[in-house]
């Protein structure tokens, strides 16, 4: 493990919502190994700090694509990085979404949780259903792109609609409870706030999807990315190593423990 970041330059900056942008990063010289969907990078803003950011697209040409929501000092600095800015990147870190042998893929995302799931939406599973929730229509990520995805059925739902909103108003568990799905064939990938993942997982268990075929992406404070700093512990897990993507049978008791 190295603490030394590899320089990447911001190639493009796409404004997604009022507080979220997507940065495409190109290596200045050397590049990092390829990322898998679900893995994350530690991205450093000069002089401000370093935070974990999931990979949110894998174009295959060595470009790193990250969607960043400004929620703190470092994410604000990264959010504000204009094209040309040099950022430091370390990675890839963590576990990937397990997609081997997937038949029907069910992807449930809440808020910025859609970003780590975006790379799996091109997965050649037999059938992909995406249920994505957001606060308002203006907070929904990748809207134009989502409507153009082939082979993906998409249900978009918001907490608060507006006059122009043609999608759904409600929480993701509502369509999740009523969409047609074959529990024998479904693999579910969940990413969003912890309560959202817990509720979704329970809805899926109620529909007969086995816990073993539910994966969640967990988050804790991360500083090193290699199990050295101790910050990302969630019970027995070092989430930078054994996460972020975790099977629900392992995650469930940990998510139910208070202040773990």
């Amino acid at each position, binding site marked *: 493990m190295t603490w030394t970041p590899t320089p990447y330059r911001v190639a493009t900056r796409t404004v997604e919502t009022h*507080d979220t942008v997507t940065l495409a990063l190109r290596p200045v010289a050397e590049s990092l190994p390829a990322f898998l969907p679900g893995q994350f990078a530690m991205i450093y803003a000069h002089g401000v700090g370093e935070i974990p950011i999931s990979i949110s697209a894998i174009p295959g040409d060595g470009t790193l694509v990250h969607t960043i*929501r*400004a*929620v*703190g000092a470092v994410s*604000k600095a990264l959010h504000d990085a204009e094209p040309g800015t040099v950022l430091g990147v370390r990675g890839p870190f963590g576990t990937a979404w397990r997609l081997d042998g997937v038949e029907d893929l069910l992807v449930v995302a*809440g*808020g*910025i949780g859609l970003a780590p799931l975006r790379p799996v939406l091109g997965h050649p599973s037999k059938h992909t259903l995406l249920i994505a*929730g*957001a*606060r308002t229509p203006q*907070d929904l990520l990748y809207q134009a792109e989502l409507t153009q995805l082939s082979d993906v059925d998409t*249900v978009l*739902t918001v*907490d608060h*609609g*507006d006059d122009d*909103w*043609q*999608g*759904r*108003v*409600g*929480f993701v*568990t*509502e*369509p999740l*409870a*009523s*969409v*047609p799905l074959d529990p024998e064939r479904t693999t579910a990938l969940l990413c*969003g*706030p912890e*309560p*959202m993942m817990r*509720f979704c997982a329970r*809805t899926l268990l109620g*529909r007969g999807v086995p816990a073993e075929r539910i994966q969640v992406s967990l988050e804790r404070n991360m500083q090193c990315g290699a199990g050295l700093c101790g910050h990302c512990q969630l019970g027995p897990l070092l989430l930078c190593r054994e996460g972020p993507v975790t099977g629900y049978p392992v995650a469930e008791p940990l998510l139910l423990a208070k202040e773990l």
Partner: protein
Amino acid sequence: MTIPMTDLDALPLLMNLSHTQRAALAGVSRIETYEPGTRLFDEGGLADQCWVVLSGCVMIDAAVPPRGRVTLQSIGPGELLGWSWLVPPYRWHFGATVVSPTRAAVVDTGALRQLADDDPALGYQLSLILIDALLNRLQATRIRLLDLYRNPS
């Protein structure tokens, strides 16, 4: 138009009903299709039916001056629309408008009550289905109260 059984058989909502029970339910229902903009009911109106949306989308709203009709909730495929027929005074509490081309099973709730009274086993199953749907709606609404997706900064 009478209801094709394949529509009801495919609904997760009715999964726990036997084929015969679903057929009984179909007997008190009819299929309707609605154009976007169709007003299904208004607050205060007599609540004497409910809908199971098969495809499309219906929005539930409340009139809030001066904001006008505020959308609270959408009802999509496989979901149940309309509860006020269950309890007095049998008046709609909210309004509902179709927002995309919608196909729905419209249930005659008077006849449904009669069915449940005549066959307590079916009545019990129907109660469970209603509670399940209601609980799911209640829990989802509570989670929305958490405002989970807000920016914490």
